[in-house]
C-alpha cells in the first residue's frame, strides 16, 4: 500500500519547492488545469537564444501537483527549447523517484503546462506549433459523477 505514499523526494520538493513565483518579464506563460478539478498550474518562462534561461511556477493543488511542477522546472531550467519540448511525464516521475499511481496525472499536467508555455512562446513569435497546443479537456478524467470514478484505487 505504498501506493498511497509519497517518496522522500516528492515531500522534499513539496516542502521546498524550487523556482516558485511569478515572473515580471516572462516571455511566455502557460496555464493548465482547473481549480474545479483540484489542481491548476502556471509556468512562466524566459528564453535566451534557444535556451530556457529562467522558469517560475505557481501551483494550486496537492503535494504531488506542487512537487511535479517544481521538479519540472528544475529539469528544464537551462535546457534547449528542443529538448524541453521532449520532456515526458515519465522523466518527471523518475526525477521524483516515483509517484503514487493515483497522482501520475499531476506529472502529465506539469508537462502540459510546459507545452502550453512553449506554445505561447512560439505563438508570440508568429509560429503556430499546434503540436504543443494544450488540450481543452484535461482535468476531466478525474471528475465524473459515476460510482466508478468514486471507486477504490487499485
Amino acid at each position: 500500500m505504498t501506493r498511497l505514499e509519497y517518496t522522500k523526494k516528492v515531500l522534499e520538493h513539496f516542502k521546498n519547492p524550487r523556482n516558485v513565483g511569478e515572473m515580471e518579464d516572462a516571455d511566455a506563460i502557460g496555464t493548465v488545469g482547473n481549480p474545479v478539478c483540484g489542481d491548476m498550474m502556471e509556468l512562466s518562462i524566459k528564453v535566451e537564444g534557444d535556451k530556457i534561461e529562467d522558469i517560475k511556477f505557481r501551483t494550486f493543488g496537492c503535494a504531488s501537483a506542487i512537487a511535479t511542477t517544481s521538479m519540472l522546472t528544475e529539469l528544464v531550467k537551462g535546457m534547449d527549447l528542443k529538448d524541453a519540448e521532449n520532456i515526458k511525464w515519465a522523466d518527471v516521475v523518475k526525477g521524483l523517484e516515483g509517484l503514487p499511481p493515483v497522482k501520475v496525472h499531476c506529472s502529465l499536467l506539469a508537462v502540459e503546462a510546459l507545452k502550453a508555455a512553449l506554445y505561447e512562446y512560439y505563438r508570440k513569435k508568429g509560429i503556430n506549433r499546434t503540436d504543443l497546443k494544450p488540450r481543452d479537456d484535461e482535468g476531466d478524467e478525474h471528475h465524473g459523477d459515476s460510482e466508478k470514478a468514486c471507486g477504490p484505487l487499485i
Partner: protein
Amino acid sequence: MKRIYLDSNSAMPTRREVVEEMLPFFTEHYGNPSSIHELGKKPRRAMEVARERVASLIGSDPSEIIFTSGATESINLALRGPIPFRGPGKDRIVISQADHQSVRATSAAIENSGLRRSVLELDGSGRISMEEAERTIGEDVYMVSIPFASHEVGTLQPLGEVLELVKEHGALFHIDLTTSAFQIPFDVKELDADLVTLSSVDLMGPKGVGALFVRKGTGISGLIKGGGHERGLRSGSENIPGIVGFGAAAEYVKQNMSIYSPRLCSIRDHLIKGLLGIPDSHLNGHPKSRLPNNANIRFDYVEGESMLLLLDMNGISVSSGSACTQKNLEPSRTLLSMGLRHEEAHGSLQFTMNPDNTMEDAKYVISIMPEIVEQLRDMSPLYNP
C-alpha cells in the same frame, strides 16, 4: 515532536481500560459462547453484559441490539435487511447528502437491484431541508436513512421532524449514529427510530465491531447467513473480545460524556474562532447546531491535501475534504450539496476531536495554521492579493 491528533473521524484510539477488559477473552475465556461446557459461560455472560451496556447507551432493550463487524456492515444490514418485508408498492429508499459513503454505496446497490432511490440535498449549513423532505418522502418509500449529524461538517439533522414524516408515510427510519454516539446523548425511547447504527471504534472501543439496533417487531432478514447467531440476523462465531471492548467503551461513554462533551465544545469554538482569524477562511457547516468534536474550515485559494501534509510535518493529523486525498479523487458530496464550489470543497479541512484532545492542541493549530496557508497561497496562481 508532540503529535496532535485531530482526525478522530478517521479512527480513534481504543481506551486502555477497554483493552484491559478485552485481554482475558483472548487467552483465558476463549470459549465459544454457544458451548454448553464450562468454557462457554464466561464469554456468554460477558457478551450479555456488553449487550446490556450498548443497549443502555441508547436506552434500548438488550434484545434489540445485533452485533456486527462495524458501522458499514450495520448500515448494509439496516438498509437491505428490511427489503423482503416491505409493504406492497414500497420500492424507494430516501437518503441524504449528509450520509456516509457506506449509506450512499449501499443505497446505490439497492437502486441497481431494481428499487429506486432519492437523495436529499443540503442547505448551506449542511442540514437537509424539511421542505424537500416533505416533497420527497411519500407512500412509496420503505425506508429513510439520515445520520444524526453530518460526519464531515458536523451539522445536526432535524431528526424529530423527519421521523414524523416517515411515520406518516409508513416507512422505516434508520439513523446513523456512528459519529455522534460518543458525544451527544440519544435515546430510542424518545426518538423512536426503527434502526440505529452504532460503531465501537467511534466510542473509543476496538475496531471491527459494531451494532445495529433493530426495534422489536421490525421485519428484517440477515445478510450474512450461517449458524443463525444474533437472532438469525448475523451469523458467524462472535468476536467476543471485540464485543466486550465495545461494551466497555459504551459504558465509559455513558458515564463520561456529560463531562467531556462540553469541554470539546469549548475547544471546538476556540479553534473555529482562531482559524477564522486567517483571511479568506470560512466555517463549513452550522455555527451552533454542530457536533462538539467537529470544526470544518475552508481556506480560499489553497488545496486540502497540501495543507494536510504541511500540518502533518508539524505534528498535526487532520483530514481534508479534498479531491486529492483518500481513496478517490471526488470532492466531498456533502460540501458540494451545501453549495460549495469544487475548489472550495478542495480547500476544506476537517478537525475532529476525541476526549484526549486539549485546549493546547487547538492553540497549537491556531499558531501553526496561518503560515501554512500563507506559504501555499504564495505559490497559488489563484491567489492575487
